C-alpha cells in the first residue's frame, strides 16, 4: 500500500510540472496584458510597471525564476491587487470555498445516496422513475438558474433566508450549499442507483438473504459497501471540482471564496494569480484522486489485493 502511495506521488510531479509549463506559456499567448486598460498610459509608466513584475526579462528567464520561486512556496505578488500576494489570496479564499464545498458534498451525498438506493430497490417502477426524474432535472439545471430561483422563493418571497453572504447573517450558508450540492446530488443518485443495481444481483447478496438476515442489514451492510464504490471514486475528484467550480455560486451569493479569484484572474490577465490558482488546484485534484483511490482500495478487497500484487511484482 505505501509503495502504491509513493508511486502515485512521484507520478504527480511531472503532471504538476506540465500544468505549470502549459499554463505559463498559454497565458502569455493570450492577447492583452495585466496593465492594458481603456486609458492609455505613457511608455515610461508601462516600462516601470513591467520592470516591477520582471516582465522586461526574456520569457524563458521569467519561466525559470518562476519555477525557482514556486519550489520555495512563493507564488509571487498579484498583478491586479498590488500589495497582496497570491498565496495570501488563495489561503484567504480556500477555507470558505472548502467549507462551502464540504456542505455541498454532504448534502449531495446524503440526498444522492438516499435517492439512488431507494430507486434501485424497485427498478423500473414509480419508486425508481420519480426520484430519477428529479436527478435528471438536477443534472440539467445549471446553478446560475437554480441559485436565483432558490433566492427568489426562500429569500425574497418567503423571507426565510438571506439572499447572499457567507457567515455574516444567520442561515446565509444554506442556499449556496444546496445550490452547489444539487447537481452533485443528482450525479451521486445515478451513480449509487447503478452501483446498487449491480450489487443487488450478485450471488453473495442472495446468500445473505438466504441466511435469513433482515432486509435493512442486507442492504445497508452488504449492499452499500459494494454499491457505493462508484460514488466513492467520484467523491474525490468531485470535491476538487467543487473547489475550482464554485465560481458561479460564489458570484450569485456574494461569497468571498477561491472560485471568484480563479475566474477573475483570467479576465484580468493576472499572470501570477492564474498560475498560482491553477497550480494549487491541480495539486488538490491529484491529491483527492489519490485519496479516493486509497478509500476505494480499502472498501474493495479485490482492488487492494491488486495493488499489493502490483507492488510485489515490481520488486
Amino acid at each position, binding site marked *: 500500500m505505501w509503495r502504491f502511495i509513493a508511486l502515485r506521488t512521484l507520478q504527480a510531479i511531472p503532471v504538476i510540472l506540465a500544468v505549470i509549463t502549459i499554463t505559463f506559456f498559454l497565458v502569455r499567448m493570450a492577447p*492583452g496584458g495585466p496593465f492594458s*486598460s481603456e486609458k492609455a498610459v505613457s511608455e515610461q509608466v508601462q516600462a516601470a510597471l513591467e520592470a516591477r513584475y520582471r516582465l522586461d526579462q526574456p520569457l524563458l528567464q521569467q519561466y525559470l525564476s518562476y519555477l525557482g520561486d514556486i519550489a520555495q512556496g512563493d507564488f509571487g505578488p498579484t498583478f491586479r491587487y498590488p*500589495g497582496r500576494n497570491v498565496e495570501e489570496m488563495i489561503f*484567504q479564499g480556500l477555507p470558505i470555498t472548502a467549507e462551502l464545498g464540504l456542505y455541498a458534498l454532504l448534502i449531495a451525498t446524503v440526498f444522492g445516496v438516499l435517492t439512488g438506493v431507494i430507486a434501485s430497490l424497485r427498478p423500473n417502477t414509480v419508486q425508481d422513475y420519480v426520484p430519477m426524474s428529479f436527478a435528471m432535472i438536477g443534472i440539467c439545471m445549471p446553478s446560475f438558474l437554480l441559485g436565483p430561483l432558490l433566492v427568489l422563493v426562500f429569500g425574497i418571497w418567503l423571507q426565510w433566508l*438571506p439572499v447572499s453572504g*457567507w457567515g455574516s447573517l444567520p*442561515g446565509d450558508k444554506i442556499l449556496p450549499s444546496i445550490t452547489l450540492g444539487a447537481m452533485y446530488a443528482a450525479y451521486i443518485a445515478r451513480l449509487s442507483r447503478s452501483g446498487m443495481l449491480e450489487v443487488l444481483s450478485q450471488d453473495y447478496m442472495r446468500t445473505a438473504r438466504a441466511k435469513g438476515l433482515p*432486509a435493512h442489514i442486507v442492504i445497508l451492510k452488504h449492499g452499500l459497501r459494494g454499491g457505493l464504490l462508484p460514488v466513492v471514486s467520484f467523491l474525490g475528484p468531485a470535491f476538487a471540482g467543487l473547489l475550482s467550480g464554485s465560481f458561479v455560486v460564489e*458570484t450569485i451569493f456574494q461569497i468571498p471564496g477561491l472560485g471568484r479569484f480563479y475566474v477573475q484572474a483570467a479576465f484580468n490577465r493576472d499572470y501570477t494569480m492564474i498560475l498560482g490558482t491553477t497550480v494549487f488546484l491541480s495539486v488538490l485534484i491529484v491529491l483527492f484522486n489519490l485519496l479516493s483511490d486509497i478509500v476505494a482500495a480499502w472498501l474493495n478487497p479485490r482492488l487492494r489485493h491488486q495493488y499489493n500484487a502490483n507492488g510485489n511484482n515490481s520488486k
Partner: protein
Amino acid sequence: MRLKITTYKCLVFLLLGGIIGSLLTACSGGSSETRVEEGDRLGVLHIGNAAEPAALDPHVTTGVSESHILQALFEGLVIKNPQTLEVEPAVAASWEVSDDARTYTFHLRDNARWSNGDVVTAEDFRWSWERALSPALGSQYNYMFFSIVNAQAFANGETADFNEVGVKALDTHTLQVTLREPTPYFLQLLDHHSTFPVHRATVESFGSPSDRLSQWARAGNLVGNGAFTLTEWQTNSHIRVEKSPAYWDAATTKLNAIVFYPIDNQTTEERMFRDGQLHHTYDVPLDKVPVYLAEEPDLIEVEPYLGTYFYSINMTKPPLDDVRVRRALVLSIDRALLVETVTQGIYQPGYSVVPPDTMGYQPPKLFDYDPDEARRLLAEAGYPDGQGFPAFSILYNTLEQHQKIAVAIQQMWRQELGINVELVNQEWQVYLDSQNTMNYDVVRRGWIGDYVDPNNFLDLFITDGGNNHTGFSNARYDEIILNAAPAALNRDERYALYQEAENLLMADMPVIPLYVYQSKHLKRPSLKGMPANIMDFYSWKHVYLEPQVDAEAQ
C-alpha cells in the same frame, strides 16, 4: 420481508424529515431586524461598491470603486461641493492665485491631522507628490500633475531633481505650486485621489516609497487624513471604515461607519438591496430600472452622468477613410429610437463626445438624424443604395448590452443605407488589444470623466494621442487642446475654443456619438445628504441616516 422494507422506508423518511426540520429551524432566526435597519439605528451605512478594490494606495489605484473608498480615507487640498461640484476648501483653508494665473499659494489649516494625530503639513504634500510622480512607482494617473512646471519631465525621468518641479513647501502650512499654463481646471484636479497626500513615516516604514507592491495601505497599517479610518478589509467580502476623531472637521461627520461591499454582479446587488442588506447600490440592472420607476419610484435614482457612449471609426481603412461614408453612417442612426427601445429610455441621445452641461459647457449639436442626406452622401461616395459597399464590422467587448446596441445599429444601417455590417465581440483584453493596434473598422467605446471639464473628453483626439485610436489628426485641433485652451484666461474664452474644436472634430467624424450615460442607484429613504451629481461624487462627511419612523407609523 415486506414489513422489514417498510421499516427501512420509515427510517429514510425520518432522516429526510430531520434534515428538512433542521433546515427550517436554522431559518427562523432570519426574520428579525435587517442590516439596513440596524445600520439606521447605529449610524452605519451599508453600500454596494462594484468590485474588490485593487489597492487603497491613492497613487496606485485607478478605478472608480476604489476612489469612493479613498475619498473617505484621505483628503486633498480641496473638496468638491456635492451639489455644485465647485471646489471648496479642505486641507487648504484658503489659497491665492497670481495675476498671470500660473502660481497658486495654498494655506493649509493648522488643525488638519493624520489619523495617528500627526499634523498634515505642506511638506507632506510636496513629498507625496514627488512619490506620485516618481518614475519607479509608475502611477497611471501621473498625468494629473502635468500642468505643473517640469512635472512631466520628472515623471518621464528626464530630470531626477524634484526641486526643479513647481511644487514648494514655503513653510509648515504654505504650499506653492507653479503651473506651465493657467489651466483653469487645475483646482478640480486637487480632489482627485492621485493628488492626495500620504503619510511619509508610514509609507517609509513598509519599504521603498516608490514600490507599488508596498503593504502600507492595508488595514492596520494605513494612516490617512480623511474623515474615516480603515478598520477592516476582507477580500471580496467588505471594507469597513469608521469615523476618525482626529479629522479636523470631525464635528461635521455624521456617520459612525461605512461598510463597502464589493459586489461585481448587479443582479446580486439588486437582490441584496431588496433583502434589506444595502442602503445604496452601485448600479441597477438595466431591465430592472423601468420596474422600479413604475412601482417603487422612491427607491431609485436615475441622474445624468459625466460619460458618453460612442463608436470610433478607423479612418485609415477604406471605405471608411471617405468622410462622406462616415457622415452617412453617423446620420443614419436614429438615436432617439435607439435610446427609447434598446436602453429602455434611460440614457439620453448623444450628439457629441463631451456630455452636455459639463461645468456649464454646452457642446454644439452639429448633426441630426437625417437618413435622406445619409443616402445621398453614400451615393455620392460611389455606393448608391449601399451597392458594392465592402464588408466591414462593429467590434464590441462581450457584454449583452453592447450587443443589443450593435444589433440595433446593424439594423438601422441595413434599413436606411442598404449596407451590411458584421458584429464581432471579443473578450475585454482582446478587445483592448484590437483597439490599441487599430485592428478594427468600427469599435464601441465609452469615456467617463476624471474631472469636470470638456478638456477631459476632447484631449482624447489629439494627433497620435494614446486614446485616439481613430487616425484623426488636425493641426488646429491639436493647437487648441494643447496650447490655446490651457492659456485662455477665462471660462467663456476657453469654452468658445472647445466649441471650435468640436466643429473640427465633427467635420471629420472619426466618432459616432450615441448616448450620454446616466448613473442609476437604488437608495433607501433613510439615506440623506448624498445628492446626485454628474460625477457620482459623494462627500462622505455630509452623508447621514435618518430612520423612517413616520413612514412605518402611517
